[in-house]
């Protein structure tokens, strides 16, 4: 690892960010545990385990931060070096859009476009193949679940599916 990808006291230090997120989560868990009441050691309350788990989280996050600052760590950008970072990003965007559309549009109207996008965006499949797969796979699954297994899938505002 060269000097540009292995950094210590820099904001681009990826391990530092991981540790800081862990520390923030630990702090939140401690606060939640205290809010839920700790109880006593004879009779631990609902927040007892949460509180102590939060403390442990802060300790481990602290160890990660110390190690990131003393030993250095790869930069955030280097974690995505030499990979097709746009592909997972597109896939995440598709999944987020799907989760937004699932309830209002229903399973069929949201999953067919999702499949078509995935088939064309990851490593593009020919249109002549992508369209039948995108239509047949969700429709086939919908038919099996709804007709054979009697499982109701979301039908959305239009009542399709």
């Amino acid at each position, binding site marked *: 690892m060269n000097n540009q990808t292995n950094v210590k006291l820099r904001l681009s230090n*990826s*391990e530092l*960010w*991981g540790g800081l997120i*862990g520390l923030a*989560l630990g702090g939140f*868990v401690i606060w*939640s545990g205290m809010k*839920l009441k700790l109880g006593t*050691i*004879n*009779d*631990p309350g*609902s*927040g*007892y*385990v*949460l509180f102590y*788990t*939060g403390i*442990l*989280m802060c300790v*481990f*996050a602290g*160890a*990660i931060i110390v*190690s990131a600052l003393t030993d250095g760590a790869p930069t955030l950008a280097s*974690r*995505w070096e030499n*990979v*097709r970072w746009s*592909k*997972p990003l597109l*896939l*995440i965007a598709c*999944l*987020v859009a*799907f*989760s937004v559309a*699932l*309830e209002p549009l229903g*399973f069929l109207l949201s*999953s067919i476009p*999702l*499949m078509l996008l*995935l*088939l064309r965006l*990851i*490593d593009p*499949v020919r249109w002549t*193949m992508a369209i039948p*797969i995108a239509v047949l*796979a*969700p429709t086939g*699954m919908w038919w099996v*679940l709804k007709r054979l*297994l009697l*499982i*109701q899938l*979301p039908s959305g505002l239009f009542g399709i599916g």
Partner: protein
Amino acid sequence: MDTLVNVAHGFGVALLPINLLYCFIGVFIGTLVGVLPGIGPISAMSLLLPVTLSGTPESGIIMMAGIYYGSMYGGSTTSILVNIPGEAASVVTCIDGHQMAKQGRAGPALGISAFGSFIAGTFALIALMLVAPRLASVAIAFGPAEYFSLMVLGLVVLTFLTQGSMPKALLMACIGVVLGLIGLDSITAQPRLTFGRMELIDGIGLVPVVMGLFGVAEVLLNTEQAIKRDIINTRITHLLPTKEDWKASAGPVGRGTILGFFLGILPGGGAVVASFASYALEKRLSKTPERFGHGAIEGVAGPESANNAAAGGAFIPLMTLGIPPNVVMALLLGAFVIHGLQPGPLLITQNPGLFWGIVASMYIGNVMLLVLNLPMIGMWVQLLKLPYNILFPLIILFTILGVYCSSNNVFDVYVMIAFGIIGYFMRKLGYEPAPLVLAFVLGPMMENNLRKSLILSQGDLWTFVQRPISAVCLTFALVLLIAPLLPSLRKKRELVALDEGA
């Protein structure tokens, strides 16, 4: 004599046509996911967890178990022919297995892998039959302190064996505990971390968490790189190993079987650790260690036997103590719970048909796997040619449907997508999801046992040290926690560290 009667009873259950069908479906899907890189037994089992609801508990659990040990068989096919491990336990098989295939010895490599797996699987089952009932009778005496300490040990072993830094793995385990505690407190019924959402009152489901962290995140990671496959195109012949092959493999198969079985029993251990340990052992014992890495059959026979024996051994802590030693067993625990069953010391006496039926089905499943993996090897090779740009969108569709069907709740689909995205970033930053998932399952049990033991001992923390089993577990856990601080032990840990992700 009792054991024989019980085994006969078990075969009576396992040989019911419906259970045979579920067993076949399980081992078939197991081989399928083992063969296909990118999907492991964890994804497949979580996908099929809702399906188990439609049948009897025996059928569902027989199928789930079949997926697990079936994937151990299937994983070696991809490792040998494509040099891509089908699942994590077959990583080591790539080293010598693919070299053998390149030298035109794919047949014997696949053959010894299947026979070794069969022998190890059979041994593990016999040992399971003999050990489990005895351990269960001892485990009845376990109190909350012992259970708590055993679970702590299990989590610490897994974090110790996970790739990357130990603080990261421990942080993941803590996050898993916190996630497991979301929902109503089992003692006071007070809602915790629900943020006022009704969907969180019962907590987060295991299926969306696992499908997100292992299924969706795995697809996201795989899309980063175009998967290149170097499939051996020559016709696969001579699947039966020669006399020389058997002579060279007998020792590794025997040692791998015993080593794998005991490593499988250990909490936090499992098939992956067993295969790595067996490879290291064979290399060390060999008179010609330089052959390893260049197509030594011992390098295939040992690890493949070890991972199958470990798969059998891993059932022991789950069935006798109710503690899942790894993520796969945690999913199996989920299947038990779905059917209102609690694995533990009383399972064997209260549900003998279920326990012995599962054990007998595993034997039948092993025979089915031998048939599936040797004469039908050509079919699996063809399957390896399935394009990933079609497979990945289909996996995403199946995970969405699998999660939705497990609860009939759209919220779980959101949870899965969220965990998929979180899982992707976690893996990119070097945080392994396995400790999180195991802690997620063990968290509520750990909390319950900790609070019970503190109430029973009136707040005396010495109760964990005064009870011998508890003290031994905590001592081991402490040693493992301190070990990475010592440079020589840290190096050893890095050598055995594993990637449970696949």
